[in-house]
């Protein structure tokens, strides 16, 4: 079982973002970076599958600047065997261009399964996985909340609005991973040491034309400051009055 996992380096989100002077990106000063949340679930799912089988290889791939190698090293320290860095600085916002670069790399790689997080937590498009699948002409399930593979076949579950669906597909396939599939492990010290010696290949990303760009980035309008109406049950009548007369939601 040979599994590729496509991951992305993203800023940690628990900060107040500032807009860069260019007006088209966030100011990266002081930001901390990590693997995108859903990509962590995908790496973990891949590792668990190969561990369960007792054989196989997990290869992690990223499109990004030099610093994205830290994210690849993290995946290696979790247990991936090797890494491929497709250099692009900055990462274009065009999900087709990124999918094109990934497909060019993955094509002919002999992967049984290609995993993605269901979306990157920064650009939040959820499109690169399914577009890559189209370019490779592979079956695809987006946002799987459960995934199992056996005997050249995969089964998955997807959450819908107030419902769910179960799916079946042949391998090789592309699957993007939702939360719930696997909680990512923390790299062990041994894993971190071993990761330093694992192969990390660097090549330029074959992005092609970029047809989707960010023309501006802005902070959303601030919410007007809220009011604490009071303490305990005594404040309930005032809350109900405001919900009726001011917010008009009751």
């Amino acid at each position: 079982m040979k599994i590729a996992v496509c991951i992305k380096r993203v800023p940690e989100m628990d900060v107040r973002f500032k807009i860069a002077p260019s007006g088209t990106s966030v100011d990266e000063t002081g930001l901390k970076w990590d693997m995108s949340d859903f990509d962590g679930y995908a790496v973990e799912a891949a590792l668990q599958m190969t561990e369960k089988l007792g054989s196989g290889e997990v290869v992690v791939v990223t499109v990004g600047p030099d610093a994205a190698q830290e994210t690849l090293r993290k995946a290696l320290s979790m247990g991936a065997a090797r890494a491929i860095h497709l250099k692009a600085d900055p990462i274009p916002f065009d999900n087709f261009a990124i999918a094109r670069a990934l497909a060019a790399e993955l094509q002919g790689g002999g992967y049984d399964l290609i995993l993605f997080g269901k979306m990157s937590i920064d650009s939040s498009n959820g499109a690169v996985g399914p577009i890559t699948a189209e370019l490779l002409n592979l079956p695809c399930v987006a946002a799987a909340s459960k995934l199992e593979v056996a005997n050249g076949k995969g089964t998955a579950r997807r959450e819908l609005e107030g419902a769910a669906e179960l799916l079946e597909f042949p391998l090789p396939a592309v699957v993007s991973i939702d939360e719930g599939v696997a909680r990512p492990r923390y790299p062990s010290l041994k894993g971190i040491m071993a990761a330093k010696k694992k192969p990390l290949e660097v090549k330029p990303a074959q992005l092609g034309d970029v047809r989707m760009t960010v023309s501006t980035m802005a902070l959303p309008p601030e919410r007007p400051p809220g009011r604490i109406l009071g303490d305990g049950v005594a404040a309930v009548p005032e809350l109900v009055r405001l919900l009726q007369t001011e917010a008009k939601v009751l």
Partner: protein
Amino acid sequence: MANNVLAFAESRGGDLRKVAYESVTVARVLADATGGDVHVVVAGPPGIAAKAGALGTYGADVVTVVEHAAFADYNPEALSALLADRAKSGGYRVVALIASAQGKDLAPRVAGKLGVPLASDLTTVRLDGDKVVGTHPVNTGKVIATVTLAANPAVVSLRPGAVTAAEKPRSARVETAAPSGDPAASRVKVTQTIAGNTAKLDLGDAPVIVSGGRGLKAPENFKLVEDLAAAFGNAAVGATRAVTDDGWRPHSDQIGQTGRQVSPNLYVAVGISGAIQHLAGMRTSKTIVAINKDPEAPIFKVADYGIVGDVLEVVPALTAAVKAAKAH
């Protein structure tokens, strides 16, 4: 011809979904800007054609219906092939979908088949000369990106609820068409659609959401949240990640960065401290109410109205007061 817009009308179980009308409204607005027509594709099991006429009410000029038994469940490969083939044949300016659970899976496949990027989960969209411009929340909603798409056709998906379906009656021509290829031959097959509780409002559709966190102290106290939701009558129940991780509530109820992102008219946060992770899922709600015993809880920074107190006392009192207000 190149001013026309192609919309996808989503269905489930042989019925159109609410988002089907939203996508027609999006297409109508874009088409009106340049004097184009709105063409809509509907696919479903035999019988779906009877529902197609309703799309004219929202501004469809032509509705193409494809009936096939293999469209009874979601059929991503056959649907994306159908939409992409339609888009190619018609010389459309824009292909519009809604970023529902189905749309999030379908839209990028259509874009991939057409060889173009996808402007996904937009909250607004407009034409700007030969480009399409949309706004899209990024970085868990803390930043709004304005995205410019220079591809033809432009494939866009709109966030559910971002556009309100508006009646704009046209005498829609309904025509039937054959699928692209054999829908029964798809490699990816839905083997079962598990219906949820249909009486239960989905978090994405509910005008009011009452959500509970660790401050409820024990899973059985979620009854208080459910009672308050029932008092509103049009409310769904949500939860924080802490609570779903502990198994108090199903994962599908989780609101936050890695769960559902919602923007109801009213969001009531019960015993929720307001971790960044949670705020990412609900900060765009129109009105936010917070009930929490800790006056320093970050949830009070985003709440329009706050009550400091024990949720086990305040919530039953609020439930009674809401019931009384509704009775008037």
